């Protein structure tokens, strides 16, 4: 009960996370490593999850600023703190949280392991709309000739359920490969990406100033945000749609493990290569066009008065219309790539495998991992160095040091322990910053309980 309470308290306390699971990747042959690399090697006969507890992962990331930049008690006016930040359009906030509802697998034969599962995921990224923020806080008066770019508006948010079924196949003693098919069911989506165009104010020829809306194209696509009358009401309805009754999509994970020698291993995986077709409860908005406003040109035709404002309104709506529609759309999932090079060394031990044979392994391992996720404006890359140690056959620890967009000194730690068939694992990213949250750029947390049978 204490464990249960701890995990759930932790989940709600840290219900935010980045997508990189640098500690969990390749860690201790856990069942969850298959979800990060379908070609990961495992040594058990079958595993089953404890519903809702087999995997909880959360974390967040912020680049470009920290909470303390805004809220430090340092007698600087709040507005001044904002204006002092030098943010770029690449700075962003991410939020990711996953909870495994079901996860299980069994060994079909000596070479083949099948797995299946279902998890819910919330994934969000929002880039700093720097130019729009400047326009909203400063206005255009002190920024004549500056082009405020609408491309800075870029965000994606998704709530979805993922049903996955995979196969891991040992090709020979050196190579193991795997693949997993995913069916996505999204109940909520909102995205505004690939926007362009600008707003500029310049000194005019005919009038003092001219406002230019130049080649503007701003889209907001939503699904599930505005729900139809026949849709299930409230949070339950939204959650229910993640169970294969929402907007459906298809995805694929692939991966491999290859032993260059007895001590050196290379792994790689490509995850979430897929899409979701959104067709339910759609409400999209679009602003597209160009408009030049240089004021109202009075003609002083008293005999035939002109309705200038109506002319202006008509021209604006014609040249820069704001439209809405319910057209379905397709969005790609954020694909991810993991790769690692691992060197094992030290004391050699052996463990019982699924086929009642003993497999030798080294007590220590160290190596590097590279993680890449493809996001709307650019891909994000993280480089991790790690050290892993097996204190006993079923007691493993992993320490990581990660360089990424958020931090240059992110230290993570993970622990996996198994008592009988009950396996408990937990990993924490950026562990040294947990007592210094006001200055943290990212934190992540994962935990789970599995039943593993050899």
């Amino acid at each position, binding site marked *: 009960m204490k464990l249960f309470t701890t995990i759930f308290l932790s989940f709600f*306390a840290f219900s935010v996370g980045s997508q990189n699971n640098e500690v969990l990747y390749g860690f201790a042959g856990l069942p969850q490593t298959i979800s990060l690399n379908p070609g990961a090697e495992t040594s058990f006969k079958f595993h089953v999850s404890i519903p809702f507890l087999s995997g909880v992962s959360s974390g967040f990331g912020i680049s470009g600023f920290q909470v303390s930049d805004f809220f430090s008690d340092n007698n600087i006016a709040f507005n001044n703190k904002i204006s002092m930040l030098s943010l770029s359009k690449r700075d962003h906030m991410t939020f990711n949280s996953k909870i495994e509802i079901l996860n299980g697998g069994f060994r079909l034969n000596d070479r083949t392991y099948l797995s299946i599962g279902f998890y819910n995921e919330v994934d969000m990224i929002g880039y700093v709309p720097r130019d729009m923020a400047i326009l*909203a806080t400063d206005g*255009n008066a002190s920024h004549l000739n500056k082009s405020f770019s609408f491309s800075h508006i870029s965000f994606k948010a998704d709530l979805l359920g993922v049903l996955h079924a995979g196969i891991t196949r040992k090709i020979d003693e050196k190579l193991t490969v795997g693949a997993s098919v995913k069916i996505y069911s999204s109940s909520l989506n909102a995205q505004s990406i690939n926007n362009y165009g600008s707003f500029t104010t310049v000194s005019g020829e005919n009038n003092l100033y001219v406002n230019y809306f130049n080649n503007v194209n701003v889209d907001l696509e939503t699904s599930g945000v505005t729900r139809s009358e026949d849709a299930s009401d409230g949070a339950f309805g939204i959650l229910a749609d993640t169970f294969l009754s929402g907007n459906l999509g298809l995805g694929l994970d692939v991966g491999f493990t290859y032993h260059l020698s007895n001590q050196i291993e290379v792994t790689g995986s490509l995850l979430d290569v897929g899409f979701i077709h959104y067709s339910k409860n759609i409400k999209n908005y679009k602003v597209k066009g160009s408009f030049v*406003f240089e004021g109202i040109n009075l003609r002083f035709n008293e005999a035939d008065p002109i309705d200038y404002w109506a002319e202006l309104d008509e021209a604006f709506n014609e040249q820069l219309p704001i439209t809405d529609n319910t057209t379905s759309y397709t969005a790609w999932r954020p694909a991810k790539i993991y790769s690692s090079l691992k060197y094992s060394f030290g004391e050699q031990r052996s463990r019982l495998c699924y086929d009642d044979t003993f497999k030798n392994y080294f007590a220590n391992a160290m190596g590097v991992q590279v993680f890449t996720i493809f996001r709307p404006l650019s891909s994000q890359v993280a480089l991790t160095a790690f050290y892993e140690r097996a204190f006993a056959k079923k007691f493993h620890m992993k320490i990581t040091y990660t360089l990424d967009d958020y931090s240059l000194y992110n230290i993570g730690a993970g622990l996996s322990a198994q008592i009988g068939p009950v396996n408990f694992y937990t990993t924490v990213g950026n562990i040294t910053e947990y007592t210094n949250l006001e200055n943290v750029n990212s934190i992540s947390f994962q935990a789970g309980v599995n039943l593993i049978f050899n």
Partner: protein
Amino acid sequence: MKKFSLYLFAIFLSSCVQNLDLDQVNDFSLEPILNVPLVYFTITPSQFFDANGANPQNSFSDVTNFSIFEGGFVRNNLVQIDFNVGAKNLFDRAITITIEFLNASDQITYQLAPILVQSGDLNYIFQEVVMISDNPRMLDTSKLKVIVELESTGNSLESNDLSEFEFKSSITAHLENK
């Protein structure tokens, strides 16, 4: 494992945020200052005559709807508005521009000081600052009336004279949203 769990839980419990004052968010305000072009026109002496070049008149006017104060955000957050004018007068006499702000019933809600542009002034600049707190009726404005008036010099105006009078204007709106 138990110890590790307790250690993790201890970290979570000890996770703290020091020296932060979250109430500062209440001090956040949007204070944009926006430059927006207003009315502009160019007139020639012929416009003071009828279509036949006869019946000279001393003044004429035009009215346009002016709905920027009807929007909730502007109406609720406008604290100051600056009226900026630039003019060039090539006429052989002074011209006075009067700008009246009218409500829906054509009653004056605010009137700018007369803008007197002397003959030959090629770089006339005028600015008037209106504080909304002192002139709340300004927010009821829905029309803008511009009156052009010639100085009476005793000499008649030539309808075929090609001299021009140019008028440009803008508003600088100071908004404050807390």
